[in-house]
């Protein structure tokens, strides 16, 4: 904690937003700050406290950040207006940027968007030129037929010798057979639009941020698949010209909730390295990602399959 300073803040038009500003304890402060926001209904500390851990690690490397709760989530109060939640999220994040600008004089920002947080981050990036970087962690995903089929085959092959699949199969059957169980899963809460509407919005927004040369890292995990060949999670968008300037990384050894400490460490290493590169204008990682073998295996006790870690970054 001596390496950083943390300040609880209350801000926004009516003071209803709550957050924590983390700044380097000593040394120089980078001219870019990170915004960390809610993942689903988790409050601002993030799943497994990852936002706190990441904020402190970034601070030791000179990067300031604010982790905050959007209106109506976590510790923040409800919005006073009646805006759509995506619009309100942009207002809230702009209020956070305004606060950081006032407190620290920093005017450029990188959004660390986990899951649904990436959707809000993308809305902000489209709306506000102060955003220079966007991390999208297990967010938009459009796996094609081959990708889905391979996932199913791999799971089917693993099932006979893997007792975990008994539970997975049971839950799957329950969702299929029980309307109440299917309703309880409620995936539409986080993705309320039909797939074609989501895809169109994704194309439009990503084209816009590509035109602005925004640095984007699309990061996907072993929750979605066990392998990735060619930006598989982007499906039809994988080879779109506007997507090729974004970095893409699949890490099969970590999961969506960063359940193990090793997964958290891998995540923080990847994110810190990327944030520093964006901040200091360094080169994109090579497609082979030479550092891959230097990271600890996130799934303790298991040699990491070589195909489980693949980054594709084109200049």
């Amino acid at each position, binding site marked *: *904690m001596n390496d950083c300073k*943390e300040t*609880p*803040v*209350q801000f926004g038009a009516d003071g209803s937003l*709550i957050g*924590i500003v983390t700044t380097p304890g000593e040394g120089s402060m980078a001219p870019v700050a990170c915004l960390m926001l809610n993942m*689903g*209904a*988790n*409050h*601002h*500390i993030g*799943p*497994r*406290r990852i936002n*706190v*851990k990441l904020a402190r690690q970034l601070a030791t490397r000179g990067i300031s950040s604010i982790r905050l709760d959007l209106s109506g989530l*976590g*510790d923040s*109060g409800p919005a006073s207006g009646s805006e759509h939640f995506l619009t309100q999220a942009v207002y809230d994040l702009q209020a956070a940027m305004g606060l950081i600008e006032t407190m620290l004089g920093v005017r450029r920002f990188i959004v660390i968007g986990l899951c649904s947080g990436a959707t809000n981050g993308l809305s902000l990036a489209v709306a506000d030129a102060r955003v220079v970087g966007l991390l999208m962690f297990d967010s938009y995903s459009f796996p094609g037929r081959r990708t889905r089929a391979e*996932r199913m085959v*791999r*799971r089917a092959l*693993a099932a006979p*010798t*893997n*007792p*975990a*699949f008994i*539970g*997975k199969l049971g839950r799957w059957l329950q969702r299929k057979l029980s309307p109440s169980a299917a309703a*309880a*899963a*409620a995936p539409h*809460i986080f993705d309320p639009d039909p797939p074609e509407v989501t895809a169109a919005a994704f194309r439009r927004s990503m084209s816009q941020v590509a035109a602005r040369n925004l640095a984007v890292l699309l990061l996907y995990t*072993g*929750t*979605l*698949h*066990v392998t990735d060949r060619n930006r598989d999670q982007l499906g039809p968008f994988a080879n779109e010209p506007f997507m090729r300037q974004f970095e893409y990384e699949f890490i099969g050894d970590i*999961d*969506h*909730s*960063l*359940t*193990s*400490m090793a*997964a*958290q460490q891998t995540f923080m290493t990847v994110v810190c390295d990327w944030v520093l590169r964006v901040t200091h204008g360094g080169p994109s990682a090579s497609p082979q990602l030479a550092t891959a073998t230097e990271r600890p295996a996130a*799934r303790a*006790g*298991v040699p990491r399959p070589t195909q489980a870690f693949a980054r594709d970054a084109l200049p």
Partner: protein
Amino acid sequence: MTPMLFGPASRQLFGLFHAPERDGSVALLICQPFGQEAIRAHRLFRVLADRLARGGAAVLRFDYYGTGDSPGEDIDGELEGWRRDVCSAHEELRRRAGARRIVWLGSRLGAAMAVLAAKSGRCDPSRLVLWDPIVDGARYMDTLRAGHVDALERSYCVPDPIWRRRLAKDPDAFTDELFGFGVSPTMRQQLRALAPQTLQLTALHETVMLADAEDLAAHQWAQAEAARHMPVKISPFQHPLIWTSDPHPNNAMVPTEALQRLMAEVHE
């Protein structure tokens, strides 16, 4: 609501003070659960604090050292320090709430912390509300490490069968990272030593214990305390909150029955 850091400079804690919005005589200190359970219960306690403040109670929520937004790493957390943190939070609430009667609400491991802190004699709660208290630390740790493996298996597309084998073979497996929260050797030792006989109530305050009738360990502990003539009321209470689940829509974020019951107990 006011976010703040409080406590001695060497051990600051993050807290959120909900100022009372009308006259009242009660102040509430919320002693949170540990790790994933604290994340799960966060919204419930936020709503509970809001409602109570609206009704005239002063409320302080806080994070133990090494948890939530408080300084410290995961592995800096340990029960003796957390016991002192409860007293430190009590003093902060006393400073802000004046002469009000201070009630402590402790849930899960937070209930054990509340009992230990009250026993220390360093602070003067008027009433303890213990919700689903952890009275058997060894069993709790076993439940958490099994839940950790279950969470891993649910989260990965193709889980690794080694996890479950390790869980079965090695009693220490995964005890250093319960649900992704680092646990130090000291904390593990303290959890293993946490047993019903180490949790003794005092006669200086009332205690109410809310727990499912099937939670035999909690009920037996409370009955034993009642047999020692401690002023404890035992109250069977069921609710749908799954303590270790992620805050997802398939399990109520703020179960109405829990909210109403806790509000009633604080005001009793």
